[in-house]
């Protein structure tokens, strides 16, 4: 592909624009913003990666990872409720996931310790972790609200904060990870995962592409469950004060 063909690809943006206009869907502004942003962001990342891969220097890899984690934290913090200290709790979660997954991948020689592997895989892992963090926080907030009478009951009987939020916490962890698990059951049947399709189009052997895709799937499974559980156990204490009283205002976003 070159820039001429990419320009032609913009037809696929013009079609929804026309449709939006004729059907009064009022999606024109958002579509244009989304298109412009994706072009700028991806081209920027492309050139950045080109440079980083060329140098393959540890410092640049680290810089990229810090950028990814900052962006993910920023995004999840805005959309994921207002738990006190949520920023560092998200950072801890993302850093932990990143170290754990890359530690296993590189440590066991599953993937080489090269920028070409580390950065895209980290991108998928951290991106997925971010989505899960938002899902979890939203779900946890609504579970706490729905079950606040039971929470208060358990506290009033002399239960600890952890016992008091056990059910909402477990429910939120479970329900935020279920979509990840469910989507893996039908993968390949309905649609080919994006990464695999990309690899195949770029000329990779489909078997090789499948192997990589499976690796990513398993990684994302781990990421999903660990993100929700870790974030859950980091964030529930901020629902309570020192006297083990439920502070409601802390969780409404």
């Amino acid at each position: 592909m070159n820039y001429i063909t990419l320009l032609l690809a913009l037809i696929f943006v013009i079609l929804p624009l026309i449709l939006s206009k004729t059907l009064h869907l009022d999606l024109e502004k958002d579509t244009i913003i989304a298109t412009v942003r994706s072009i700028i962001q991806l081209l920027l990342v492309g050139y950045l990666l080109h440079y980083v891969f060329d140098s393959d220097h540890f410092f640049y890899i680290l810089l990229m990872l810090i950028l990814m984690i900052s962006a993910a934290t920023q995004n999840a913090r805005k959309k994921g409720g207002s738990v006190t200290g949520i920023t560092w709790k998200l950072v801890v979660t993302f850093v932990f996931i990143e170290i754990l997954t890359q530690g296993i991948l590189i440590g066991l020689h599953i993937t080489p310790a090269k920028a070409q592997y580390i950065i895209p895989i980290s991108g998928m892992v951290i991106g997925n972790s971010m989505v899960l963090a938002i899902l979890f926080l939203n779900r946890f907030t609504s579970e706490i609200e729905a079950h606040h009478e039971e929470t208060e009951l358990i506290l009033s009987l002399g239960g600890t904060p952890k016992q008091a939020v056990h059910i909402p916490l477990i429910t939120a962890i479970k329900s935020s990870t279920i979509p990840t698990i469910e989507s893996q059951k039908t993968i390949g049947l309905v649609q080919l995962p994006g990464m695999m399709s990309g690899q195949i189009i770029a000329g990779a052997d489909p078997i090789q592409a499948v192997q990589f895709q499976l690796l990513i799937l398993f990684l994302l499974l781990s990421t999903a469950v660990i993100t929700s559980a870790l974030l859950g156990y980091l964030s529930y204490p901020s629902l309570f004060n020192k006297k083990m009283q439920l502070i409601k205002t802390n969780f409404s976003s």
Partner: protein
Amino acid sequence: MDNHDAAIQFIDVNYSVEDTSILKNLTGIFPKAKITTIVGPSGAGKSTLFRLCNCLRSPNSGEIYINGKRISDYDPITLRKMIGLALQNAPMISGTVWNNLELPLKLQGKQLIEEEAKRLLLLVGLEEKFLFHKVGDLSGGQRQKVSIARTLVNRPKVLLLDEITSSLDRVSQHEIEELIVKINKEFSTTVIWITHNLQQAINVSDYTWVLMNGELVEAGDASILTSPTNERVQQFVKGESF
């Protein structure tokens, strides 16, 4: 009444939520080993007062003493086990009646004996067969009975009962009244009982608080209800049907 006889003492307690004052300069006592009823219109702050006693909330100013010791000097968990609170809506954890009865002990890593659970059910006037019923299938009155039984599991020294008979029929109401009086006499349990039913308050109380608009309007024996002298209490009693 002397302060030594107070199970719970309020001194100039204020409680507000986001600039809304809910309890105002509350000063008064709940006498030890006696039954005190709290009456007053809904929204007066009665349930909130119980949450303060159980340390589910803390006052913005003033002091609450429990058995002569400042409430803030207690470990909240120890305090909450000592002060049994039957919440107004009788909330249940999902599962069976048994799950709810064993909850107070399970939270402490202990096990409730099934015989004890059945004894508690009979005490509150529920047949044994309800033990393994799902709480979702219970009527409002049955839930209230389970809630009372569950509050008794910890054998608290102080019982805070928040409108526990509001969904019960006359007969059951009397049975619960008799039960509470019996527990009070037998174990010298201090009982504080919020009720909407003035006749019930007159039947069971040694001492009564009339709470209106977050203020303690009057406290004394049941005569403050039967022959009220305070103008606001008179108004309130007139408005309630006996």
